[in-house]
């Protein structure tokens, strides 16, 4: 580095650059939040879906599964599971857990009642309708 490039030049680049790009980020964030209603018009956030989201969170489902590609990588992607499996399969599957097949990955039994299972399904239906720019690449998630 040349002698004319001083520490205070570097410091100014740091402060100027950080502030500029953070403001730009805030601007993009504002635009994103404003664009969301129309961008995700299909995904209806019903009361049941909101309750289902809370069940998803308080059972730590993301500790094994991914949802829109985020979470843990131990169990299948569930963002499109409503499309892949349908509501009845989802409920039946959760009721049948754990499979207790020796050596296989096990899912806990959460003892959800029928209303709660319907809420989980409503949440997964809502998630499957989010406009994800066509991700995942295929039905297998």
């Amino acid at each position, binding site marked *: *580095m040349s002698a004319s*490039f*001083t*520490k205070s030049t*570097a410091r100014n680049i*740091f402060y100027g*650059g*950080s502030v500029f*790009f*953070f403001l*730009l*980020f805030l601007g*993009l964030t504002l635009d*994103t*939040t404003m*664009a*969301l209603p129309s*961008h*995700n018009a299909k*995904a209806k*956030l019903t009361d049941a879906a909101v309750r289902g*989201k*809370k069940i*998803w*969170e*308080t*059972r*730590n489902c*993301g*500790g*094994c599964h*991914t949802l*829109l*590609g*985020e*979470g*843990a*990588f*131990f*169990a*299948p992607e569930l963002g499109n599971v409503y499309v892949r499996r349908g509501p009845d399969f989802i409920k039946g599957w959760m009721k049948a857990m*754990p499979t*207790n*097949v020796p*050596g296989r*990955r*096990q899912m806990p039994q*959460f003892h959800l009642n029928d209303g709660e299972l319907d809420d989980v399904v409503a949440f997964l239906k*809502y*998630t499957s309708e*989010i406009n*994800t*720019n066509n*991700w*995942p*690449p*295929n*039905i*297998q*998630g």
Partner: protein
Amino acid sequence: MSNASAAALAAEQARAPAQIKYRSQAVAKPYFMAAIGLFIGQILFGLIIGLQYVKGDFLFPAISFSTARMVHTNLLIVWLLFGFMGAGYFLIPEECERELYSPKLAIITFWVFLVAGALTIVGYLGLPYNVLAHLTGNDLLPTMGRGYLEQPLITKVGIVLVALSFLFNLSMTLLSGRKTSISIVMLLGLWGLAIFFLFSFVNPNNLVLDKYFWWWVVHLWVEGVWELIMGAMLAFVLVKVTGVDREIIEKWLYLIIAMTLITGIIGTGHHYFWIGTPAYWQVWGSIFSALEPVPFFMMTMFAFNMVKRRRRAHPNQAATLWALGTGVMSFLGAGVWGFLGTLSVVNYYTHGTQLTASHGHMAFYGAYAMVVLTMISYTMPLLRGREANSPQAQKVEKLAFWVMTLSIVGITLFLTAAGATQVWLQRMSSTPLSFMETQDHIMPLYWARLVCGLSFFSGLVLYVISFFVTGKRED
């Protein structure tokens, strides 16, 4: 200076008793000891989940995968936070040339944080997660159950209080002392860490917004403000072990963190490709995150340049090795492996696969675990009353460095292969397999990863042993 004479000088200096410059720096010691203890816990739970990948019912239902993984990732964050705090309590008094504002507060904060952290882990392991959520007030303000932010509400509030006490203590010290660039950058990073953690309390019902702001903690931490903390710590140790002019080191520091934030803030966009946000994020995210390796490359150049230009042979060669290792491994893990999946056309196939996990492991170890270990390596001998550990102890520490680092390279390579297999069989094939069928094909790679995990753990044991190697004294 030749290597032989440098080594002789180093051995001589190592024997000379040394002390910390300010007595209150001693509060860093319990923080570092706790960090190492929690690090061991983190790796043990890593081994449990590594084994569950191949023996799916291992420890089920006592410790399910989701619980063990949560303990693994939460312990990672907490031990790094203990490390950052210890580093702050050591670095700030020395840079400010005065005693810490309140050593007593620092010790109280330590115990509060440790007990709260331990209780949280006990809660994870002892209670069903929804019961824990109910008991700790998650109904008042639901924040739990999102990756890395699984802590109960009361723990999150506790973290904020601990952070405020810590930042108050350091800021008061800085305000009345000498203000160096290193200490200012360190405090900016720590304040940023605390401020962005506040977004962990934001959990909109709308899943898209939930995920959007979740990254304001997770991404803006590890690809933003944490890099300021990392840069400051690395610069501090390099000033000490190389004796290179502070002006030069601080100029590098500013340039590196400038590039970090210039690329990293908009680089958050690489997480906004597929979560329901507008498509323009694919352009913004791809461009800026493709530049994110730049600051890490500069970090590598910085470490090697400064060591090459060194004006003294510091007796603590292990600390120098850790500093160089941080430069290289953070570039590989965060820079190169981060770049692998960052362009949206590639990420479309790799998103949410083991490739993400491979990048995560090497980046966290290379950038944050290693920089904390660099700081511990430099400061611990001083905190124990000597300039450097005996050559025998350093030999063990260096061996631990190589075992842990090569093991993480192994873990990363096997997970990369696992991810590539997954993409190929599950996403690119004309007859795609289901997730679980694909997993069956990956089993041998998961076994290999587990072997590397065991090897990592043995490196960590060696590291702990190095603290107890006294070595022969010639006098």
